[in-house]
């Protein structure tokens, strides 16, 4: 499988990259880790005339603390996320989820920017970013803007990214000290996308849930925030009846496709179980 022909560009700065994107127009695609785009190019499902490789841009790498946020450069790989003590301590759910993405080789190349910007409903980071209340920095020749993860996803592979824009970093608010979190993902094998997955970040107070946020992966054409399910558990001790209500509220907004991972009803059922398990595990680790 040989990709179609293209011209290769390797800019050294974001300014050069967005200028190239503006000059070359719709036939140009930015290339991050390449582990979604290159396979698509080999299948000729993507045939960009120009690839703008972002690997030469040092400013897109690295993780830094900025006040109450962790700012993660778009070209930071999953492997680098896993190696970060800041990530493991401040938001262990990010570490946990990165470990469930693909396999070791893919994690050396796959980037957080590519994962969140591609708009693939199977990717894990988008729902996680919505759950954590993250925002994305989008840059173009015309300037920069920030878009909340919750407002970014419009449909499968359709996002708020405008032509000429590159997602340059992800800013994630550090969850409250003592918070509990869990990412539950059912997949058929290593490297598979989720049959269904749920992210939970919550805080407990006096044995009851004080705050809660729930995100869902691969059960709709976009990642979802399960707001009703999260509201259903606030003020409760996550008793059996509450967990059942929360799972039902989450399932009510799911609309997965029937595919090799199972029929619609099965995938929704699994989604409800992922929500239940993630809630229980998050509550168990909350202080």
């Amino acid at each position: 499988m040989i990709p179609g022909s293209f011209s290769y560009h390797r800019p050294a700065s974001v300014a050069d990259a967005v200028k190239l994107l503006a000059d070359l127009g719709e036939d140009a695609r930015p290339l991050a880790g390449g582990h979604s785009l290159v396979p698509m190019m080999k299948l000729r499902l993507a045939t960009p005339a120009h690839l703008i490789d972002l690997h030469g841009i040092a400013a897109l790498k690295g993780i830094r603390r900025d006040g109450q946020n962790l700012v993660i450069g778009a070209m930071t790989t999953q492997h680098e996320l896993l190696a970060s003590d800041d990530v493991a301590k401040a938001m262990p759910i990010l570490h946990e989820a990165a470990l469930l993405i693909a396999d070791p080789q893919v994690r050396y190349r796959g980037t957080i920017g590519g994962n969140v910007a591609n708009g693939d409903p199977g990717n894990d980071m988008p729902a996680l970013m919505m759950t954590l209340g993250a925002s994305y920095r989008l840059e173009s020749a015309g300037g920069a803007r920030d878009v909340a993860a919750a407002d970014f996803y419009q449909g499968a592979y359709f996002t708020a990214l405008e032509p000429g824009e590159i997602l340059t970093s992800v800013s994630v608010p550090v969850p409250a000290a003592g918070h509990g979190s869990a990412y539950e993902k059912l997949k058929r094998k290593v490297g598979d996308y989720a049959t269904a997955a749920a992210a939970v970040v919550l805080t407990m107070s006096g044995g009851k849930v004080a705050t809660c946020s729930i995100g869902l992966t691969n059960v709709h054409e976009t990642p979802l925030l399960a707001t009703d399910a999260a509201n259903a558990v606030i003020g409760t001790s996550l008793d059996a009846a509450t967990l059942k209500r929360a799972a039902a509220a989450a399932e009510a907004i799911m609309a997965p496709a029937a595919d090799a991972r199972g029929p619609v009803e099965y995938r929704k059922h699994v989604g409800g179980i992922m929500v239940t398990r993630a809630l229980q595990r998050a509550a168990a680790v909350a202080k």
Partner: protein
Amino acid sequence: MAKTHVTMKVNGAEVEGLVEPRTLLVHFIRENLQMTGTHIGCETTHCGACTVDIDGMSVKSCTMFAVQAEGSDITTVEGMANADGTLSALQEGFRMMHGLQCGFCTPGMIVRAHRLLKENPSPSEPEIRMGISGNICRCTGYQNIVKAIQYAAAKINGVEFQEAAE
């Protein structure tokens, strides 16, 4: 499409070539450099047979363009032996523990296990299994591949290898 001149280090030697931008790294290695130890299995980033070590990372060379490897330092299975030509601890482990059946996945397995042991010289069995989870053995000979890596880890750490009881 105009060809691009690329230079990189492969198994310690400076190499160069002319490639189209669309040339995959694995094709450059196998066809331009005539080093056919690196295998092409699935061509879809799943099987790991094409794994090479690039600047300290295990990479599936079917999912990277040769032009992206400009200036990098690559080790393939041909570069795994000791400097004096004897088998490395990993190669010896695969031989002693019968860590291969048909042998097709073996180059990728050895190159991946090489980086795994560099990052974690004393991996547990689950860590080995997760560490090679991007490599598929279609003979399903995983038991002996895991033993081969355990053998190599023991040898590298200077301790006697003891097979776990069945």
